[in-house]
């Protein structure tokens, strides 16, 4: 290959889609490194503090699409304080200076302000797509800036962000000449939007294929929109609160029956059972259905709906679907690949809920299942062993038994054998979340069998440091490890410090690691940032007489070539 001209090498590299492949080829030799770096268009940064933005932009001057992730995953569950970090501004600034041709930006778990959005909107003339996932710090003012200045915007996708509603009619800021929208998702916004503006926007964007409305959008408005956009593929319905005695309902049925391309539905924020009838015409084409925001829809109505969805590949529901409903899913949805069952009432008695039976039914009925997120109140080893046998193709298996330390209710044993069966059978497992009563044994199994595992989440599990050591030793491809409330201490932490440089990050909270242990880790591994998040009052400074034996309540370790970060708040100590 060394004798090929660069253009040929570059052309070959064009076929390399994944970041990992491109990263790999760039390490072969200097020539390839150079060819690759000038030809890379999509840049992915898994941890915004692992590298300085300027270095990224300098290396990839041809960058068109940038994706950056900020806070650790457990920030989703309020374990990371609000102002921990993950600021978007340095990245936007660097791109403004170095890559003005930027077209797409995707940020996940980062802090984005209105000023950031304003800067973004004004600085990139070719900007096409903004995707913000689980971000915070901005308001509808920032969205107004995007709408105003990003002519030619194709995608604005806001997923599960915390957005302040400043009441400004940001949707109106889309210029009359803006006709390029392909995807618009504002489902996470709390405030109202002007119905007329929305309808006109939809009407003038003939390429609109994905539209996700927020809760404030009424069903009357939905009617108008669907009538104007019959080519929609992906629809988030807005409130969907409709009285089936009214005209609106009838019109809704008519509108939906005209949507021949509709294959993905979500929303249903305030749907009541009767209005689901309107959806029946599209069910046979649905590949994605998300009913997980609709607690008023109970099992029987879900069953009626789902029994028409033969082509369903992805289903998100609340656990009120019950085992009975899951059995219907199993017998109907033979193409199912991804299932998520969320808890509908975490405070209550779980009167209508799912158990291991539902999961077993799914596993035997849906052979293509590869991704699972399942919240339940109980699970048995026998069930997990059966599931493992039925579904060897799992790539993501996340089981959350809502009571910590809950054993198998039939045998009273820990769930080691059940999860062991899963990792033994599912050779391609990349992501695993554990729950229930678990001893060190399950970690032995994971270390032994889960060779492809990249992300592992552990809570309330294990007996000793051995558990964590099994994981670190055995899981060669581990990238992210997050642990809470487990008896793992300094011995485990310091067992193989070099391992952490092969991983993106390690999170440990409410475990047994001490300040001394963390300091030792930091001392041995200068290319790791060892951060302690200290939330107790009164001790802001590391120097204040805190013994090394003091437990580190929250520790976040990540590899970096950027050194300690300079934007850490007072309560974050980088050792």
């Amino acid at each position, binding site marked *: 290959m060394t004798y090929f001209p660069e253009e040929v090498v570059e052309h070959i590299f064009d076929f390399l889609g994944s970041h990992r492949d491109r990263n790999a080829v760039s390490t072969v030799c200097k020539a390839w490194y150079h060819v690759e770096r000038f030809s890379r268009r999509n840049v992915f940064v898994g941890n915004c503090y692992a590298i300085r933005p300027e270095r990224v932009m300098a290396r990839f001057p041809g960058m068109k699409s940038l994706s950056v992730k900020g806070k650790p995953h457990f920030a989703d569950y309020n374990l990371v304080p609000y102002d921990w970090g993950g600021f978007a501004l340095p990245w936007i600034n660097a791109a403004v200076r170095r890559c003005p041709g930027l077209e797409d930006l995707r940020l996940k778990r980062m802090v984005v302000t209105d000023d950031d959005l304003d800067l973004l909107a004004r600085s990139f003339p070719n900007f096409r797509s903004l995707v913000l996932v689980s971000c915070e710090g901005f308001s509808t003012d920032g969205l107004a800036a995007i709408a105003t200045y990003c002519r030619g915007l194709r995608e604005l996708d806001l997923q599960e962000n915390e957005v302040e509603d400043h009441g400004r009619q940001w949707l109106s800021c889309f210029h009359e000449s803006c006709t390029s929208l392909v995807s618009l998702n504002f489902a996470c916004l709390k405030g109202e939007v002007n119905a007329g503006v929305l309808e006109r926007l939809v009407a003038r964007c003939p390429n609109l294929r994905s539209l996700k409305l927020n809760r404030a959008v009424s069903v009357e408005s939905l009617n108008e929109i669907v009538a104007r956009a019959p080519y929609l593929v992906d629809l988030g319905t807005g409130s969907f609160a409709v009285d089936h005695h009214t005209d609106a309902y009838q019109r809704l049925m008519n509108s939906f029956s005209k949507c021949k391309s509709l294959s993905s539905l979500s929303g249903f924020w305030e749907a009541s059972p009767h209005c689901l009838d309107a959806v029946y015409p599209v069910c046979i084409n649905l590949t994605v259905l998300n009913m997980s925001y609709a607690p008023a829809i109970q099992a029987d109505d879900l069953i009626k709906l789902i029994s028409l969805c033969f082509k369903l590949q992805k289903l998100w529901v609340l656990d009120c679907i019950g085992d009975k409903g899951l059995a219907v899913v199993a017998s109907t949805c033979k193409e199912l690949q991804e299932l998520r069952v969320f808890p509908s009432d975490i405070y209550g008695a779980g009167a209508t809920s799912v158990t291991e039976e539902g999961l077993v039914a799914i596993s035997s009925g849906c052979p293509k299942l590869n991704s699972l997120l399942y919240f339940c109140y109980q699970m048995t080893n026998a069930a997990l062993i059966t599931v493992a046998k039925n579904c060897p193709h799992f790539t993501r298996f996340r089981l959350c038994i809502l009571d910590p330390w809950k054993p198998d209710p039939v045998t009273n044993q820990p769930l080691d054998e059940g999860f062991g069966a899963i990792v033994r059978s599912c050779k391609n497992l990349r992501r695993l979340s554990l729950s229930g009563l678990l001893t060190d044994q399950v970690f032995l199994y994971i270390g032994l069998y889960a060779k492809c595992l990249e992300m592992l989440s552990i809570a309330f599990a294990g007996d000793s440091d051995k558990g964590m050591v099994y994981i670190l030793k055995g899981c060669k491809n581990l990238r992210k490890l997050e642990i809470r409330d487990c008896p793992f201490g300094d011995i485990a932490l310091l067992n193989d410090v070099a391992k952490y440089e092969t991983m993106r990050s390690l999170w440990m909270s409410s475990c*047994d690691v001490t300040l001394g242990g963390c300091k030792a880790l930091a001392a041995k591994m200068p290319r790791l940032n060892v951060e302690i998040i200290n939330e107790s009052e009164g001790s802001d400074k590391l120097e204040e007489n805190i013994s090394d034996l003091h437990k580190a309540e929250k520790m976040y370790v990540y590899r970096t070539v950027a050194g300690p970060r300079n934007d850490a708040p007072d309560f974050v100590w980088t050792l």
Partner: protein
Amino acid sequence: MEEEFRGGRPQLFDFITNGRDWSDKGGYGAAEEKNLELRLGLPGGEDWSAVQEKREHPAESAVSPGHIAKIPKSTNLSASSGAKRGCSDAVESKPEGTLADKTTFQQRHLQQQQLGFLQLQAKGKESLHRTSGSAGLQSLEGKVCGPHAAHASSTKNTTATHSTSQSRAAAAPVVGWPPIRSFRKNLAGTAKASAESPNRRSDAEKKLENDRKGLFVKINMDGIPIGRKVDLKAYDSYEKLSLAVDELFRGLLMAAQMDPLAATTQSTKETHVIPGLLDRSGEYTLVYEDDEGDKMLVGDVPWDMFVSTAKRLRVLKSSDLCASSLSVASL
């Protein structure tokens, strides 16, 4: 023994403070022995979320070390051996060792071990109960599970702690558990609220409401033909409920007061238009109908119990509060 726990109950669910004093819990020992019989070969699972608390309260091993013997030998924890060494007030004949000899570190381990095991047991019991249906020791478990949940005090996770005492007590209040996004935690409540409008009632919504005992209950007031509905889960004390009832009926009552035939002589200068609802000093009294159909005076039982058993409320004229009229009057 049970009384002791009941007395301590508000403390146990006081997740805001770190002030758990384990020295009070000497009584656990005997109760735990009883629990031991049901527990089978449980490996020691510690509760590591109570770390912060335990820093404050090192020296007490109020829990019987007897159960520690049940930890299988396969767990070779330094902590567990520390626990075996360190139990000072052994109920059974365990090797003695004064805790005072140990470092704070080991004491913490000991306590967490005990604490964790305690809750482990309790949780195991909880699951057994769920499958076997017996409710005998549920209240005990509910209390025992409480301390585990006192996590980082800075972020308190829930308001519905009281009504979960009988079941999922441990799951609800722990920070970041269960691992779902915040907006999902509120889904059920907000959906219910919006489903309340009268022209959208459906069987499913009614069922949803009934499944949650004592959430929205009807409340009628003497002299006012149209009733209201009040969400009991929105309040955490009788005082707040009383205030809410006051506000609900204030406008209607004042309109009724314009009627010269109305007997009320309350001063409108007062903050409360309907004072003395709870202490029977005022003109009106708050009563409720419980899940057995009996009419009861509001205020006798702990708030949680009231919320879980109240089906309807009524604001009666205090003069009507005699036995005969209560049985005759339909609530």
